[in-house]
């Protein structure tokens, strides 16, 4: 099967049974790989209303035809499950080197099901796969676990591990790999922890068949050459995603003190060049990457090192909690990575609690004595540790995510829990940025930016405009960008280096032997988008329009300072955007795909 490992590994943690089955040609044709495989298996195999942290939920790891191949950024795999954080669909993309080894071991997907009674890790080496005792690793940090497993098995073995946050089933626990890459969002680490699976160790040495080796070599090299020729390659490599911090501060997109503003008075010390000068010691990339965006940093004050922080973490564990020292932010980043919790959600939960504390809704009795003011660095560190351990009142409260925490606390705190569908919003403030607003509202995992990012587009078109063109742009991005998560590649080469996306077409054809244009790929993207929507409808009674609403902060409270001072999106415009979105998608007023839409997309078999 050209471009694929050729098999699916099924691991039942309850019984210890491990089986391999051939990857279906029809599955590869219709869903291609990555999150396409993930939503297919999730829909077909996980029972309706399964407990996300119970044995019925499955954690599905899938790569795609670009993974491990001669393709820039072919180091991505996708982790899919029912989310314990949101109760709906979750997938998290992870970079590094895991996915290449996975494919070289002959695997397109690993399906983890059931629950082990004792801690184990999964060892895979080509055709060999077995569960091994992990009792001695349980309780250890994700980075320490990776170090130990690499020492045990050897450097070529790739490791993905959870930390205490995953073991304790913090609802936004993540999975760590390569000392600083994560499958971060939606609680995939909690699902892994619920299965008592501490880590996966894998190594593969098989070759991957391709349809046309010479065309493959040419098309792959053409992509690399385009990346190397990009005139912004040096800037992107130098700064990575931190390049946007100063700009976000300037245009009011930098989340500040629980998204109450979009510009931070202490922001300058978080800017990319400052970070580069003060703490970065080298660049770090994923498999086959010509533009390594990872920055490896040395925090002299703490005597520690971390991969990061990247933009999201600077936003959520920097300005959003009121920290302005890049070393402090990097240390908070390290704590989250090693303890195994998503730094975006952790920042969102802590900043929510800080606002509630400053408003007097939460007191020291609720925070276990912690002075949880914005800018208190020790409070941030302690809160992260408490969350990962589910320790004390504060840890117990925040480990459930800001939506549940706000429901429990009440007293108006729901109005400033910055989340959609239960997922904390990633690090772009959207006061008066309507394309980005509708992007967050409709993202199929919750308030995450990776599906469609449109702030520059907002600025180009007019940030307050509520027009069909904006909605159409977001829908197109939602079909196009996540295709990289289907293909098993990284979107940054197209997104930021601006290489011609058509260069991928001959490469994909040379690898798989199947000719697909971007129009074809976007159709697959639309099918997947509708399928994830159906999954939400299947799992959550009454799922619909009310689940697509943003935090009231963005339509009730204009920032009092910064670039967006006094600016706000009116609630009627929020609803107008949603109406336009549903109409353009062929969904009804509740946001449910109509039968004719499902028929058009050949998805009637999945109809609710």
């Amino acid at each position, binding site marked *: 099967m050209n471009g694929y490992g050729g098999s699916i590994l099924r691991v039942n943690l309850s019984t210890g049974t491990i089986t391999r089955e051939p990857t279906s040609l029809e599955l590869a044709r219709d869903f291609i790989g990555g999150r396409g495989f993930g939503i297919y298996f999730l829909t077909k195999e996980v029972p309706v209303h399964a407990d996300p942290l119970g044995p019925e939920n499955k954690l599905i790891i899938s790569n795609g035809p670009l993974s491990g191949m001669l393709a820039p950024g072919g180091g991505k795999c996708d982790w899919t499950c029912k989310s314990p954080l949101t109760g709906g669909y979750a997938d998290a993309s992870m970079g590094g080197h895991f996915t290449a080894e996975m494919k070289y071991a002959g695997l397109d997907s690993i399906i983890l099901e059931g629950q082990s009674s004792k801690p184990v890790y999964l060892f895979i080496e080509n055709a060999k796969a077995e569960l091994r005792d992990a009792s001695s690793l349980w309780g250890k940090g994700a980075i320490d676990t990776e170090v130990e497993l690499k020492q045990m098995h050897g450097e070529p073995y790739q490791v993905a591990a959870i930390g205490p946050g995953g073991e304790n089933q913090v609802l936004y626990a993540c999975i760590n790999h390569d000392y600083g890459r994560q499958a971060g969002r939606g609680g995939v680490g909690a699902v892994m922890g619920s299965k008592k699976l501490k880590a996966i160790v894998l190594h593969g040495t098989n070759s991957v068949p391709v349809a046309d080796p010479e065309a493959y070599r040419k098309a792959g090299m053409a992509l690399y050459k385009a990346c190397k020729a990009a005139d912004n390659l040096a800037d992107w490599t130098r700064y990575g995603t931190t390049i946007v911090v100063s700009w976000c501060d*300037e245009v009011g997109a930098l989340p500040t003190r629980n998204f109450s503003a979009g510009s931070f008075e202490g922001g300058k010390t978080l800017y990319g060049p400052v970070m580069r000068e003060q703490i970065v010691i080298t660049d770090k990339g994923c498999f086959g990457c010509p533009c390594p965006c990872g920055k490896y940093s040395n925090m002299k004050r703490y005597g520690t090192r971390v991969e990061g922080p990247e933009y*999201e973490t600077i936003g959520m564990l920097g300005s959003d909690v009121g920290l302005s020292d890049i070393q402090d932010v990097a240390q908070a980043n390290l704590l989250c990575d090693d303890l195994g919790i998503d730094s975006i959600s952790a920042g969102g939960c802590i900043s929510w609690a800080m606002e509630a504390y400053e408003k007097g809704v939460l007191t020291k009795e609720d925070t276990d004595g912690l002075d949880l003011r914005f800018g208190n660095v020790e409070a941030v560190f302690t809160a992260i540790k408490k969350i990962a351990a589910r320790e004390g009142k504060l840890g117990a409260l925040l480990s459930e995510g800001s939506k549940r925490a706000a429901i429990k606390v009440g007293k108006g705190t729901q109005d400033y829990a910055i989340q959609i569908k239960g997922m904390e919003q990633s690090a772009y403030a959207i006061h008066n940025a309507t394309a980005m607003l509708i992007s967050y509202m409709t993202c199929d995992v919750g308030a995450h930016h990776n599906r469609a990012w449109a702030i*520059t587009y907002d600025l180009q078109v007019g940030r307050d405009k509520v027009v069909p063109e904006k909605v159409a742009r977001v829908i197109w991005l939602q079909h196009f960008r996540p295709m990289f998560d289907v293909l098993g590649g990284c979107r940054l080469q197209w997104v930021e280096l601006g290489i011609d996306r058509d260069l991928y077409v001959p490469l994909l054809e040379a690898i798989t032997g199947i000719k697909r244009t971007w129009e074809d790929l976007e159709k697959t993207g639309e099918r997947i988008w509708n399928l994830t929507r159906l999954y939400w409808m299947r799992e959550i009674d009454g799922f619909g329009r009310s689940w697509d609403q943003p935090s009231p902060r963005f339509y009730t409270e204009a920032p009092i300072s910064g670039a967006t001072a006094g600016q706000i999106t009116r609630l009627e415009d929020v609803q107008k955007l949603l109406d336009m979105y549903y109409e353009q998608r062929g969904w009804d007023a509740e946001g449910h795909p109509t039968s004719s839409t499902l028929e058009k997309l050949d998805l009637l078999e999945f109809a609710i």
Partner: protein
Amino acid sequence: MVNGEQEYYPYPLFITHSFFSTMPVILRPVGHLKSYLKDQAELVVPAGRSIRETLRAAGIPPEVVALVVVNDVHQTDKEMVLQDGDVVRIMAVIGGG
């Protein structure tokens, strides 16, 4: 901007140099921003204006420019006045990670 046209024209450097009594500023967009200059590699502009004014005059909305590098030094203040001989590299963010 005059009638929607760029105030400065992307003449080749050897021609425009002779129009100025002092060394001009060279504005060099990279990546997606080149589309604002119809894919010209660079633009020669007069010194003495702020980065923001210079961008506006070139038909590039200042707010979409995420990175400004003046003589290889990152510059976050768009009010900075450009000097004779400055080389300014500018870049936008399209994807946001």
